[in-house]
């Protein structure tokens, strides 16, 4: 009994407190909201579709600029997205169609083959760099590899234009120079992003597959040759 009394001593004053029933207990519990980001997330449902699409397109375009002028920035890594790589892959695969029939085995890569090379290749390189101890996440690495195909896609457009204008040895030399330059650009841009995340002694092991990947895509771009006479 005495122990109970002592235990209740600190709370002794509370026994006098009473709340009469006719005073309503009310108030405001307000949680401080962060900057307007929370409001934005709710209001994206209400914004026009055009704005949503334009925002994504602007993000993709921003990353294109970061690829074309590779400098130390984290835009590609922080806000990764895979729309850009998808757009580039589809464009490249469409441009590589050379008008051969499905039954002609000797032609250039089919649409599906380009897709498999680009995406499967990127996934394997990402797994390789992760197994070697890389710190980039899976999708960040896919994002970087996909976006750095941009110079080769630009080279593909240039090659198609050159082939229309001037067939022959001159066009081959021009195409070779353009493809080599863009292959070097792609490799340089992607290793600028990827190699920073690797321990120094394994960098060569990570860079080589990237080099091989863009080399293969460059070879596909360079060997593009439209069939002149279509079979009916």
């Amino acid at each position, binding site marked *: 009994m005495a122990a109970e009394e002592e235990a209740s001593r600190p709370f002794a004053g509370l026994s006098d407190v009473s709340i009469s029933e006719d005073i309503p207990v009310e108030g405001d519990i307000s949680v401080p909201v962060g900057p307007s980001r929370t409001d934005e997330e709710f209001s994206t449902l209400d914004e026009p579709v055009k704005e949503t699409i334009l925002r994504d397109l602007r993000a993709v375009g921003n990353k294109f600029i970061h690829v074309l002028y590779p400098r130390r920035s984290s835009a590609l890594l922080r806000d990764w997205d895979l729309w850009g790589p998808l757009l580039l892959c589809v464009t490249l695969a469409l441009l590589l169609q050379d008008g051969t029939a499905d039954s002609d085995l*000797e032609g250039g890569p089919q649409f599906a*083959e380009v897709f498999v090379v680009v995406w499967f290749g990127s996934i394997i390189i990402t797994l390789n760099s992760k197994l070697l101890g890389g710190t980039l996440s899976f999708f960040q690495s896919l994002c970087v590899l996909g976006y750095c195909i941009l110079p080769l896609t630009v080279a593909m457009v240039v090659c198609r234009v050159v082939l229309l204008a001037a067939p022959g040895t001159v066009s081959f030399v021009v195409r070779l120079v353009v493809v080599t330059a863009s292959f070097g650009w792609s490799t340089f841009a992607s290793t600028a992003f990827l190699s920073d995340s690797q321990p120094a*002694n394994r960098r060569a092991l990570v860079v080589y597959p990237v080099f*091989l990947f863009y080399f293969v895509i460059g*070879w*596909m771009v360079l060997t593009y040759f439209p069939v002149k006479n279509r079979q009916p």
Partner: protein
Amino acid sequence: MTSPNDLKFEELEDAVQLLSADPAASTLSMSVSHAPSSPAGGPDVKVDLSEDEQAQEESAEVLERVRGSMMPFPGRSFLKHYVRTSPDLYGPFWICVTLVFSMAISGNLSTFLSQTGNPEYHYRPQFHRVTIAAAVIFIYAWLVPVALWGFLTWRRRAERQIGVFSFLETVCVYGYSLFIYIPTSVLWSIPVQWLQWILVLVSMGVSGSVLVLTFWPVVRDDTKVMAAATLATILVLHTLLAVGCKLYFFQASEKLAPSPTSKPIHASATTGFL
């Protein structure tokens, strides 16, 4: 189950010391020392992500193994000398991928070079060769080691005294032995027949001897018939790969089809010939 994030190298110090002290020792000691660590029959190979001194030699190690695969010495087993107890899958896998593309690209180039004088020739990229090369090379470099490892494991149960390599070590040896074909395939694009066949013989000799020197200490304790049969099978498969690749990807100019703008009958004849 190990997730990719906690893969690590296992170093068996005593096994390494034993082997470096006596490189000619039979591999029985290697398999015995493996037994405590993994009763399944082979060491678990893991890539250590946190040990810096292990990671120091990563790139240099791969290069050293590649160099070793090109210079076989009698009495020096590739496995014991270069791989020891830590087989890696990086080398075999990327050597196979590189070989696939180098075969396809050089084959395309050799077709082009051998047909430049032909006015009817119309350049084709021949991308389907990549698919075929990938199928052939990956089947050879991954299924043949499975079969060989399975066979050697079965023989070990029958005849106690022969040694056996783990599956990863077998794949590792086969993968690195294919490295010599990469520069060979680049040189094969020169459209000179006798040079191509000399290259076939040289590369078959080098990579075949790497395989034979590695597997000889394992099978020599078996009965003579089985030992000879095993080595003969390894060599025959290797020969088939080399000669088959040479004949398919680097065809002599007189066997090539005329340009695809001709009738479809020629195209089907070509695919029939291929």
